[in-house]
């Protein structure tokens, strides 16, 4: 209790609240804008923190971190483009819902699920941060490799139209991550002697190209054939309480998966959303409707990606080890401000830690307001003539693709990925598997290589790891069960993509 009051002492100036509010608004907007993700939003805000008092800078960053993950869902739902990579799985059911005229409800669900995910992980963070930090370090390369492998099985769920097309996409995605310099030997792979390719590809430009730019190109090709904002029913409508209660199991599972994967350094929100989606495909009572505009698919994605925020803060705050790209920048700004996350913070300055928790809580509440606000804003925005809207998306997409690592090559990558995306759409190939491949390929290889280096080349190490083994087993069981059930009944054909 004493801790609570000394933490409250950090809130003594109105600038802290102003920082939370500004951070919340900027975070949501940046999340909504295709291309501007969590990391870009934090980097853009970084220079402003120099002149701020420590606690305001912390509030600003916490608010941006929490709300930017949520903002991505709004553009995923309304324009079929995830605003941030974390919302890639939200597109699958969010956009079909909007097309069915339930955009307002979809945004309501996304907001509520994000809020629940955020609060759930925050509670875990407060109650068990030091204990879970110890759990987190127990996950070595083999265990994380097993989890990533499990997440990759999601490709199969997202390609039920044609398994071959989906798997092909997944392999293409994985392959793209091998281009460029290999971090472990310094060898340049698949660069074809070109300096441009040496740096390799990164997720964001490919993701923006495949989703946002291909949407722009596609609409340009089929002028006017799309539904406009008016009959999508853009707005903000919360689902009835009974519906929420009926889905508590889905929410709880997604929250737990998100928090847990968030704890594992470097694994990331995308793995969490895909694992959650896979789990929903397996266990949700509405699993057959997933991919056609079923709220279950939307909420497991949004609840788990926001649950990652609290999860990722656990190793960041308790161990000083950043959990993902966003927390890396967060850690940097705290260091600049003279706060050293980790041992000292937990043991000697717990009131700062408590204050950080309170900021996350407030940011989650602010998210509701900014969500409603941006739904309104979008309602207007979607009434803008389509060429202008698409022009804006094009602009933000290219800015977003560039700002992540400041490499002009990424602009080319983004534009090419957009063209590829249109071709794939026209040929009825699903896009999501490629994105999953790229999103998980880096960590997939990294953990495989680390495991092999540690074991001096023996693959056996992956199967003797007590944590990895059950996860491999679960993966095998899920694949086997699916194969068996597919053999028994004729495969359903549905286009998940559109």
């Amino acid at each position: 209790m004493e801790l609570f009051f000394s933490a409250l002492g950090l809130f003594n100036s109105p600038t802290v609240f102003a920082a939370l509010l500004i951070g919340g608004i900027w975070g949501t907007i940046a999340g909504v804008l295709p291309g501007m993700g969590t990391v870009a939003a934090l980097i853009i805000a970084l220079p402003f923190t120099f002149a701020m008092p420590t606690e305001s800078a912390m509030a600003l960053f916490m608010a941006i971190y929490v709300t930017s993950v949520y903002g991505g869902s709004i553009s995923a739902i309304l324009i079929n483009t995830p605003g941030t990579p974390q919302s890639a799985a939200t597109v699958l059911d969010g956009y079909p819902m909007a097309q069915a005229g339930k955009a307002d409800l979809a945004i309501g669900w996304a907001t509520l699920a994000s809020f629940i995910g955020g609060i759930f992980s925050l509670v875990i963070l407060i109650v068990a941060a030091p204990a879970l930090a110890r759990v987190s370090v127990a996950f070595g390369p083999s265990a994380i490799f097993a989890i990533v492998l499990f997440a990759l099985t999601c490709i199969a769920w997202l390609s039920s139209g044609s398994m071959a097309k989906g798997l092909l996409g997944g392999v293409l995605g994985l392959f793209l991550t091998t281009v460029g310099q290999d971090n472990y030997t310094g060898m340049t792979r698949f660069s074809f002697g070109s300096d441009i390719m040496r740096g390799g590809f990164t997720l964001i430009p490919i993701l923006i190209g495949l989703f946002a730019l291909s949407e722009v190109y596609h609409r340009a090709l089929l002028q006017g054939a799309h539904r406009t904002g008016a009959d999508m029913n853009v707005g903000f409508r919360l689902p009835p309480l009974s519906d929420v209660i009926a889905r508590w199991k889905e929410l709880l599972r997604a929250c737990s998966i998100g928090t847990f994967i968030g704890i594992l350094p470097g694994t990331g929100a995308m793995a969490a959303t895909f694992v959650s989606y896979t789990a929903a495909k397996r266990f949700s009572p509405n699993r057959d409707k997933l991919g056609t505009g079923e709220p279950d698919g939307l909420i497991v994605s949004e609840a788990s990606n926001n649950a990652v925020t609290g999860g990722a803060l656990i190793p960041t705050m308790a161990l000083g080890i950043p959990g993902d790209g966003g927390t890396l920048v967060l850690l940097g700004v705290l260091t600049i401000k003279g706060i050293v996350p980790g041992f000292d913070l937990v043991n000697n300055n717990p009131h700062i830690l408590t204050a950080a928790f309170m900021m996350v809580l407030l940011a989650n509440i602010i998210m509701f307001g900014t969500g409603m606000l941006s739904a309104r804003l979008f309602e207007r925005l979607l009434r803008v003539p389509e060429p202008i809207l698409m022009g804006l998306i094009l602009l933000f997409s290219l800015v977003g693709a560039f700002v992540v690592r400041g490499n002009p090559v990424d602009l080319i990558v983004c534009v090419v990925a957009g063209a590829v995306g249109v071709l794939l759409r026209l040929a009825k190939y699903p896009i999501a598997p490629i994105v999953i491949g790229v999103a998980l390929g880096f960590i997939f290889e990294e953990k495989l290589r680390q495991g092999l280096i540690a074991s001096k080349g023996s693959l056996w190490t992956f199967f003797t790891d007590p944590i990895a083994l059950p996860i491999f087993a679960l993966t095998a069981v899920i694949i086997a069960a699916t194969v068996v059930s597919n053999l028994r009944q004729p495969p359903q054909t549905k286009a998940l993509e559109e």
Partner: protein
Amino acid sequence: MMNSVLKILCSATALAICSVGAAWADYPDRTISLMVPFAAGGGADVPARFIAEELEKELGQSVVVSNVTGAGGTVGATQLSTATADGYSLGFMPVGTTTTQPHLRGTSYGVDSFIPICMVASGPFYLVVDADSGFKSWEDLEAKAKGDGITFTGAAPGSLAHVTSVALGAMWGVDVGYLPTKGGGDAMNELKGGRADATAWFSDFDVRFGLNALAIFAPERSEIHPDVPTSGDKGHPADIAVWMGLFAPAGTPADVVAKLDAACETAISSEGFTANMEKANREIRHMNTDEFSAFFRKAFEENGELLKNAGLVKN
């Protein structure tokens, strides 16, 4: 005939030099870009932003930090090496990117691609172990290394942590296993999870990670941790530090370099910079252009030699 052509050429050249010279005299008259080859908020980014803030005051122009990340900083460094050498494209780069990666990765840039302007910060490496590990001293770790063997962890092969593990192996005459990670705090995950025995880290190993240091790889003990012996105290003198500083592409005019050198010196001793660095737990080390140039060239060759001896450079 020949003579008059020469005359014209000469006067044209002189004119060109004069007019460019006049432009240099006004340097800087627009925004300067400071490229950092690592992510925002990272180890190299933080001092870069601090120094940029002070350089702005000194030079009277905006100094904008841009992060160009990837492949151990070599993507950004390659970009800087081909940038226009007019003093408006500068880089803030650490030891690994500039002195180990060129040997390891066959980069298109080398020791002659940059003009070192000034060293800004340097963090000596400590040999650290987990507090619960049972290693209480240098001798404990040495015994295990000579017995069952130890695993060292750190950033990618070729990083300074890796160089440290190679150096340690040479000191003890053993092979030290190396478990590479993505860098940053990731190595601590392996250390605290018990999958590695030791790593190399900066002076904030205790406040940030709650680790113990067995030695510091520096000629002198540190004021921050006077209890930690130097590796020299244990019979193996070494000087391993992650230093970083300001670089310009080769060909940057001498008077621009001189102006930057002077601005850097004032910026580093400024109150704002020293206060910021202290708050962020970072150690300042200044070298001017002359000192830093000699130091850089020596470090480039020594690190190349070290990597070659460790069998990491194939040619």
